[in-house]
């Protein structure tokens, strides 16, 4: 369990992290969201004991990070931003080194190495110097390093940054397949990642916490949540749609001709809309309920802070 209270980090006159408080329990996969420079990486650096907080408290497994950093770090895996690794080593040498530092020995070391190398599919690249590897493989080396000792807390700073869609998918699967009693914190600015991997989303901007709930809740914040999108086969008079009970607003997207109906207070307006269409015999070739647009919510929330 991680508990953070009133965490602040000041660099000169710049407040990178401003009074963050939150708790993370085993089983939580937390997505740290925020624009660049929001304080995500700084927060992670403090969680891993790399940077000392300017004020506030971080406790992991009921130990203070300042007093017992080394004990905590034993149970913690960390992928720093950009997945740094010693370029002159090969992945095999590097992972061996990490295993030694982590105190893995003998048979256990062999097993963990083999397992992790398979998990990140690194076997074909084991004997090339890391500096010659592609970005995707470098990232995998970083991930392998972080999960090598099967840590209870895993902190990944932009694990999918710079990967192609297939690699992103792999990394997400890997995170989902970690056992269920772990704490995982990943930072990202890819919103779909949060809905597909995390069960909790935190939005940070300007060092402050703006939102902390499930990704579904985040979607619910969207104007588009439960909105109905439809497209008519022919031009018809649709002004009546906007008058339907429960419909707050109607928008027509000019270039696509798509009509979006926004509900009042997130009501279910599908029945009235479909009844209306049926009664009038309107020709519709597309009709669906929107999930809520995350980037919309994200932009709206973070814009308020930067202003």
């Amino acid at each position: 369990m991680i508990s953070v209270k009133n965490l602040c980090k000041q660099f000169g006159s710049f407040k990178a992290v401003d009074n963050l408080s939150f708790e993370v329990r085993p089983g939580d996969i937390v997505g740290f969201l925020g624009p660049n420079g929001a304080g995500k990486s700084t927060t992670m650096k403090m969680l891993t004991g790399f940077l000392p907080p300017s004020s506030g408290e971080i406790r992991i497994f009921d130990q203070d990070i300042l007093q017992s950093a080394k004990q905590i770090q034993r149970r913690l895996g960390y992928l720093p931003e950009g997945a740094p690794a010693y370029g002159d080593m090969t992945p095999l040498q590097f992972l061996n080194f990490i295993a030694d530092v982590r105190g893995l020995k003998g048979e256990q070391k062999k097993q963990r190495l083999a397992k992790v190398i398979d998990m990140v599919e690194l076997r074909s690249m084991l004997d090339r110097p890391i500096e010659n590897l592609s970005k995707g493989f470098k990232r995998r080396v970083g991930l392998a390093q972080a999960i090598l000792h099967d840590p209870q807390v895993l902190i990944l700073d932009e694990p999918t940054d710079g990967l192609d869609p297939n690699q992103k998918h792999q990394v997400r699967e890997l995170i989902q397949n970690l056992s269920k009693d772990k704490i995982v914190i990943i930072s990202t600015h890819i919103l779909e990642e949060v809905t597909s991997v995390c069960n909790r989303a935190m939005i940070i901007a300007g060092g402050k916490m703006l939102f902390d709930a499930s990704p579904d809740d985040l979607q619910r914040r969207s104007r588009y949540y439960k909105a109905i999108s439809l497209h008519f086969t022919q031009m018809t008079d649709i002004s009546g749609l906007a008058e339907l009970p429960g419909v707050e607003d109607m928008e027509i997207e000019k270039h696509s001709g798509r009509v979006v109906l926004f509900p009042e207070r997130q009501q279910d307006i599908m029945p009235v809309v479909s009844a209306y269409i049926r009664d009038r015999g309107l020709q519709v070739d597309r009709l669906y309920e929107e999930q809520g647009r995350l980037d919309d919510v994200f932009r709206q929330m973070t814009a308020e802070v930067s202003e």
Partner: protein
Amino acid sequence: MVGTLFRREFASYFATPVAYVFILIFLMLGGVFSFYIGNFYERGQADLLPFFNFHPWLYLFLVPAMAMRSWSEERKSGTIELIMTLPVTIWQVMLGKFLAAWMVLGLALILTFPLWLTVNYLGNPDNGIILAAYLGSWLMAGAFLAIGMCMSALTKSQVVAFILAVVVCFLFVLSGSGIVLDAFKGWMSPMMLDTLASFSFLTHFESMAKGVIALNDVGYFLIAIGIWLYGGFLAVEQKKAE
């Protein structure tokens, strides 16, 4: 733990050409200096004094070149974040780095053995003296190295680290030389002058090069190593985030 870190660092000197280049240049320059400038043959004495006399000047440029990447590289590539969040302390990393580089320096010294063979073939040198000089040279190299690593911990740029290290090392070498001491003679009390000279690597190395292993000389170099490594430790701790 220091052993694991030491092995990684030591291997990395040989994975990159750093160690090979260093050893090669050291051997070449060492030879050139002792034979051409040091008049190894013409002196007609069976000792390695001309060889050892040039060591401070050789180390002055070669050791900072070797030490410059130790911390700068970690900060530049971001691996410092990795290593500092592993369950190892800064001191363990520092010692691992220092010992690895010091061993490479020791290896370079050992590889000068043909010179020792030559002098033994040509005459009857006092091998005890030579051994003491080797030890002294290695200790002095360690002090140069500790300075270089401290400077490397101060900056992300290897070039800046190199220049800083050369300047600081130069001061420590020079403070015992005639030029500096003469310059200060006019207005410094003899005691201050002695203190200044006693900080010099040259003063402490010269007696060891002549075969005298005094506790204060050995102690001086060990303390210098300790102090500069501590300086490096502080620099790493303070500046790791930048």
